[in-house]
């Protein structure tokens, strides 16, 4: 494993840590900022790969991640946070319990999916030299963290962040495996941004989500 491989593994672990950080937060502003940091870290991975593979596509990809995910998504979400202090805090959440369940869920799901489906996969990027596909564990961790965040929380903001985290994992997954054409990646980014904008409109109307009698059954 050379220095670039080690750096990729190090930053990928930080990305996974950022996902756990978001999971451990009750304050929505902290979660949004955590998502921005996570996106910047993913952009750094893109820049390292760009440097190693001398590829302009990865530079464009990294720049898109910073502009659309780290900056614009953050901007649209922060703009929608109500001024009242009570609204920016997600109550009724037993964080220590959730964190424990999250850890068990992530370890089991990532272990099963990786060993069944991805353990024998050959990476097409320069990471191929590191000899195994272990680096795919990080995007898988991020993906399931995003899903868990959506499933475990009740506020609209947290669920949007869970979705963005899920999308971040897919970008990372594609970067490690084989990056899809940049035009498609850019369209996906714009799609996700539009979805965040649409969701942020719903945020104003409905902040938390509880069962509704009319939607039972």
């Amino acid at each position, binding site marked *: 494993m050379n220095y670039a491989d080690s750096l990729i593994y190090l930053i990928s672990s930080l990305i996974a840590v950022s996902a756990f950080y978001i999971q451990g937060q009750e304050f929505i502003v902290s979660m949004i900022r955590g998502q921005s940091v996570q996106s910047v870290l993913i952009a750094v991975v893109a820049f390292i790969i760009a440097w190693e593979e001398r590829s302009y596509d990865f530079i464009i990809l990294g720049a898109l991640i910073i502009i659309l995910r780290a900056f614009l998504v953050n901007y649209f979400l922060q703009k929608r946070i109500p001024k009242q202090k009570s609204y920016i805090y997600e109550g009724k959440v037993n964080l220590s319990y959730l964190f424990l369940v999250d850890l068990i869920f992530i370890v089991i799901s990532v272990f099963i999916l990786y060993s069944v489906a991805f353990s024998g996969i050959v990476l097409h990027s320069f990471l191929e030299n590191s000899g195994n596909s272990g680096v795919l564990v990080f995007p898988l961790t991020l993906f399931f963290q995003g899903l868990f965040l*959506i499933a475990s929380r009740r506020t609209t903001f947290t669920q949007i962040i869970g979705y963005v985290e899920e999308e971040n994992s897919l970008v990372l997954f*594609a970067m490690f495996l*084989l990056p899809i054409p940049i035009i498609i990646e850019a369209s996906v980014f714009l*799609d*996700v941004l539009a979805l965040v904008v649409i969701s942020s409109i719903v945020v104003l*109307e409905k902040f938390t989500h509880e069962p509704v009698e009319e939607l039972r059954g």
Partner: protein
Amino acid sequence: MTIGNLLAVLILLIPSSVGIFYRWRIKEASIVAAAIDLALSTIMYYFRPQTGFFFVQNITIIFIMMVLSVHLLSTVYSTRYLRGIENMGIREPTYYLLLNLFTVSMIFSLEVNNYGFMWVGIEATTISSALLLITEKTEASLEATWRYIVLVSAGVAFAFISIILIYYSLGTLSVSVAIASHPHSRIIVLAVSLALIGFGTKVGVFPVHTWLPDAHSEAPSPVSAMFSGVLLPTALYVLYEVYEIEPVQQLYVWFAVISIVAASIFIGYQTRYKRMFAYSTMENMNLALLGLAAGGPLGVTGAILLLISHSFGKAGAFYSSGNVLRFTGKKNIAEINGLGTSMSYTSASLLLSSLAVTGTPPFGTFFGEFLILAEVLSLRMYAQFIIVIIFLATAFISVNYNITGMLFNGKGPHNERDRLMSAISVISSVLPLIIGIFYLVVYIEVL
């Protein structure tokens, strides 16, 4: 640029350009755009683009015409339906703009020759249609909108893993190239299986269907008609295009069968008619999935026949439901009776459409179901055949028992206040019958 490509671009551009009329006559512009688009799609039948950015096969053109027909009906129906809404969540011009963009995103998903862009198109259908759900703003519609956004987006994310794996295995995302390549690898099997969860969320495959009844029941009726009639078939088309790369037949067939069972059980205890029709859509979509997964000329023809007939039948059911809701203000099946005397045209369309969506002969849906089940039998899938037959019968009894109760129990004063709304629901409900009779005549001629 070939004529086919030009037509494909025009079909996307015309509804998109309706936004120019946002401040002035967008309603009329939407109807004109929908009609022109439908006319162009019939011309495109003779000039199908099959290379480059667009890939329109015989089956694609059927889906495109289906989408545009239901779009035209829904646009005309909306002009009257929206008048009665007291608390509108979005402005009327925004509604028409989003309805057009929703159609454009579906057509884009169908026309494009790239799995990546197909995913983008399917995601765009969620973006463009999400706010349409809060046209009638209530606590329930806001919650349904949110569930729709989160569940569908989270589910469709799985499909993107599938797209990445396809690109990893084949080095291309071109639909025409991928289908022709016939690769056999573990990764492709994984990709096709993940697509079932991903795109299956939008199709209404159990257990990732949970957004479907909420969104259908809380959306305004013309939007519910588009969801049931054409959005789900569009997602099914995309899923089928992925399936064609490497048919994982047993997995798809069993998921379809289990989904039919689940939908039929859910139909049985519904107390609201729109929600009941939503589960009926889930049942029909999975039956079509069963046909496509079974394959063969019978399975595929049956699925297409079922989808076309169902799209008009279910649109008719939702337009009729819209009439009932608008003129009675009631959502519960138990609260409604005497429709046969109070709303004669609507009751006719409701009866015809419920018979159509439950596969009654001689509606087109019946022949579709018949062909699909014939293919299932020819593949010696006896267990699947028996399970499906039992639960189709269950759904048939549940839906028609509830609807006939609404129509024939008691009497009520005349309450049909809008002829155009009634006319559209009748036209839409009669079409599956015409399709069925046409198929029967052609079939007898061929024999």
